[in-house]
């Protein structure tokens, strides 16, 4: 641990793990990617001023369209929302920070470096150019051969790793760290929206990770998952995996914006949301339903009509809970006294735009209409109204929480001018696209009769861009010269972030927050009365009504928590290392290196990542678990164990997607036509015994740790390590034999699936052994885990999971 430097120091921003700092970093980085994606959008609109080639070549246009989509969907929308989530969620639930602050910083750095990787891809012979949905077979190197194409895939993969870490972190934080007295129904609505978003992300992004691992393998090793010649269902395989992620992703992007709308509508109507519980239930229902509609993106493929009909029905079904939410929002305004501030205007605008986007989407959800609309600008207009329209509320959020983050008010006139310009520009940009719906997507050719609509859209695009210049000017000038905002500039805000200084002090408030007596109070503990550096209400207002400061009781004093750490350089180091490593991997094409510099990058990347990971592992970083908190439904588990279980649940989906891909391909080919790759099941059976035995030794290690037996712990964990090594040795022998008889990953679809699936499992074994090796060293050198055996248990949970995967892989690949 090192001390956190002041905010004026660059070092502060490299080492900080504090949720508010990380939130600001997310917001600034996301706005940077908004600018980048926006410039690409303007290029697209300029190109479409007249039909046919003009300023961009065909390839450059494809790259601009693809990268615009990828940047906006992945690197802008969600991270922008999670900037607010980072800053606000811990404050709203009464937590000091996220559950795992260092992991949070790591999420941010992987996000930033994945975005930088995306930018580098432009300079590697061109970036990925086959559409943001990365449909097969255009996604394989035969059709998108540039090195930059592989880099873009790897950038997305790195981004998904970042998202997975963030997801686990937020799930544990919200479920495990709510202030005393804050039950599930009392969670503020923005935090509710983030909670449901991360639940969707946990499973949806895992499916995308599975898909990207297969695509990465096709591009880097040369396997045949998405090669059209492998099986006629290859392109459907990608579509299923991608849209199983992709449809929940629509709500993953929209829910935080919805949460902002719910929050802002309450604050600026001065009224509690009408039907609050029903709105929460409707959001839960949508989160579940979002996983049941994905094939409506595949109506024009050759999937059967029965499944299309089912998905049409589920799609219509998902609009029902949305109707409830929209009416609740409208009725809240009707019942309240509306203040037309800038945040409110953006939220209201978002609602109007989203309603239009939603209604036009119903057309696409009907199979027959989709046959006509698919691949046209109707789709383009619809999803911009939904995704960008929803994100409009996020700009409202920027104005809403700007006073909290900076302590200064923005300029209200310029804010309203921004909204007016934006709203006019938005509709001028996207509404004509409905009228020019016959324009085909993804190409710059269109019927010249539609030219007026396209030129209006281009003008609208520039107006939207100009509106953001007003926003940046306003926020920049206000940062230096804005009126002091005080703790709570809004008359009717009710959530906890408004009860403390703007900006809040490092540890938010002295002591701990509590709602035990029905209103917010801060309970001081002996250590925090000395550490306190803020936490007072600066202005009288509504918050004063529910803010009290309690003296600690004797029981509470027992739960006094030691000082927290807020700084670590290692997340940044891991980010740099993985950036270099992934850049090196992008130079592998069909298992052949495109140049020696890529090999050097791989070597340097492995070295840097390994060094930083070791630094991360050895660092003493204290992020205490709150002694008193609401934890339904995970009481008594422990925050790290809960985090491990969330991670494992997501890994179930990653492996499930990969194994599901095998079943899908094999069923598509005809189950009996599949040729099993290993000639003999014996090595597989022996490895099954080896892994089962290693699971047993891990359990013995836990027993030894509980009994504080160093020798027993070293012996049992050492045996696990040796058994892991044995497993890999047998695997290596088996693979080398298969290579010797000419079976390579590129040989056939059967070989591809066999090598990738068992290889991914083998990679999990290697990761487990690295952790086991690290733990063995710590036991040997500092008698670790004898006083606190929990890390041995956490490692065991992971190792048993790896064992379970093999329980399925052995029969699937050796016996069937």
């Amino acid at each position, binding site marked *: 641990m090192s001390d956190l430097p002041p905010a004026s120091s660059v070092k502060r921003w490299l080492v900080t793990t504090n949720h508010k700092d990380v939130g600001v970093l997310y917001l600034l980085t996301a706005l940077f990617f908004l600018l980048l994606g926006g410039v690409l959008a303007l290029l697209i609109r300029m190109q479409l001023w007249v039909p046919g080639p003009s300023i961009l070549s065909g390839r450059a246009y494809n790259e601009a369209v693809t990268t615009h989509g990828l940047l906006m969907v992945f690197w802008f929308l969600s991270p922008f929302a999670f900037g607010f989530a980072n800053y606000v969620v811990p404050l709203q639930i009464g937590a000091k920070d996220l559950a795992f602050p260092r992991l949070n910083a790591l999420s941010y750095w992987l996000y930033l470096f994945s975005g930088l990787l995306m930018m580098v891809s432009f300079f590697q012979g061109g970036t990925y150019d086959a559409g943001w949905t990365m449909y097969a077979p255009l996604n394989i190197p035969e059709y998108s051969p540039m090195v930059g194409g592989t880099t873009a895939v790897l950038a997305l993969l790195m981004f998904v790793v970042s998202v997975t870490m963030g997801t686990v972190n937020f799930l544990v934080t919200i479920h495990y760290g709510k202030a005393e007295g804050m039950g599930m129904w009392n969670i503020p609505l923005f935090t509710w929206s983030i909670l449901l978003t991360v639940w969707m992300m946990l499973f949806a992004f895992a*499916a995308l990770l599975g898909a990207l691992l297969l695509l990465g393998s096709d591009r880097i090793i040369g396997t045949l998952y998405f090669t059209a010649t492998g099986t006629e269902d290859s392109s459907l395989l990608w579509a299923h995996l991608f849209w199983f992620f992709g449809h929940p992703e629509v709500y993953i992007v929209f829910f935080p914006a919805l949460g902002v709308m719910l929050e802002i509508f309450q604050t600026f109507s001065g009224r509690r949301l009408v039907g609050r519980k029903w709105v929460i239930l409707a959001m839960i229902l949508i989160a579940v339903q979002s996983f049941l509609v994905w094939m409506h993106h595949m109506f024009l493929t050759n999937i059967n009509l029965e499944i299309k009909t089912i998905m049409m029905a589920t799609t219509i079904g998902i609009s029902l809970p949305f109707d409830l939410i929209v009416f609740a929002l409208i009725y809240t305004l009707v019942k309240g006294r509306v203040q037309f501030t800038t945040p409110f205007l953006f939220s209201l605008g978002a609602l109007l735009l989203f309603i239009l986007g939603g209604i036009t989407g119903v057309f696409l959800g009907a199979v027959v209409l989709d046959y006509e609309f698919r691949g046209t600008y109707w789709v383009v207009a619809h999803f911009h109204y939904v995704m960008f329209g929803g994100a409009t509320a996020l700009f409202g959020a920027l104005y809403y929480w700007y006073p909290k983050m900076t302590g200064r008010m923005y300029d209200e006139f310029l804010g309203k001018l921004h909204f007016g310009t934006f709203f006019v520009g938005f509709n001028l940009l996207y509404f004509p696209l409905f009228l020019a719906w016959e324009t085909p997507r993804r190409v710059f050719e269109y019927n010249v009769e539609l030219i007026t609509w396209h030129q209006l859209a281009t003008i609208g695009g520039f107006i939207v861009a100009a509106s953001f210049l007003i926003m940046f000017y306003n926020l920049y000038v206000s940062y230096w010269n804005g009126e002091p905002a005080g703790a709570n500039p809004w008359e009717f805000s009710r959530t906890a972030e408004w009860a403390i200084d703007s900006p809040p002090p490092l540890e938010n408030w002295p002591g701990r927050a509590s709602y035990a007596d029905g209103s917010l109070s801060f309970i001081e503990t002996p250590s925090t009365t000395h550490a306190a550096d803020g936490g007072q209400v600066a202005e009288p207002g509504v918050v004063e009504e529910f803010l009290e400061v309690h003296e600690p009781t004797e029981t509470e004093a027992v739960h006094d928590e030691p000082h927290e750490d807020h700084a670590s350089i290692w997340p940044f180091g891991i980010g740099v290392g993985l950036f270099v490593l992934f850049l090196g991997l992008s130079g592998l094409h069909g298992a052949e290196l495109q140049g020696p510099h890529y090999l050097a990058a791989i070597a340097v990347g492995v070295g840097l990542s390994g060094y930083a990971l070791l630094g991360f592992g050895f660092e003493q970083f204290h992020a205490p678990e709150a002694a008193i908190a609401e934890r339904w439904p995970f009481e008594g588990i422990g925050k790290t164990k809960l985090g491990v279980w969330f991670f494992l649940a997501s890994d179930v989906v990653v492996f499930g*997607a990969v194994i599901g891909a095998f079943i899908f391909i094999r069923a598509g080919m005809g189950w009996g036509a599949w040729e099993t790759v290993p000639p003999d099941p014996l090595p597989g059976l022996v490895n099954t015994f080896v892994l089962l035995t290693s699971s047993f030794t891990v359990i013995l290690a836990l027993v030894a740790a509980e009994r504080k037996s160093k020798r027993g712990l070293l012996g049992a964990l050492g045996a696990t390590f040796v058994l892991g090594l044995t497993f890999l040795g047998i695997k290596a022998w088996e693979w080398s034999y298969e290579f010797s008889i000419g079976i390579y990953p590129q040989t056939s679809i059967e070989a591809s699936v066999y090598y990738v699936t068992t290889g991914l499992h083998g990679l999990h074994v290697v990761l487990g052994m690295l952790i086991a090796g690290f733990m063995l060293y710590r036991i040997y050198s500092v008698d670790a885990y004898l006083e606190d055996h929990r890390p041995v248990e956490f490692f065991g949970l992971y190792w048993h999971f790896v064992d379970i995967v093999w329980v399925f892989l052995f029969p699937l690949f050796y016996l069937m």
Partner: protein
Amino acid sequence: MTSVKLYTAIYVALLVLATSKVIFFQLFDYWTAVSMTMVTAVAKTLLIVAYFQHLRFEPRSLTYLVGMGAFAVFLLTVAATYSIF
């Protein structure tokens, strides 16, 4: 909870179940063997999860959490495979 005897018994049961998979393919026709093998694999998983990962002794919510992940991939695999027939 940390009974070495219990863990040993489960370990032996897992070894027996693992061996049985190979035997099924010697004794029964292909699809019977496949069905029995998958049932065995699920049984082994339940044993490992319940005892080695001691989910049996944890709050039930953790079981639901992992169950949701398993259900999600089951749904994806079954629905996707069904869609191409």
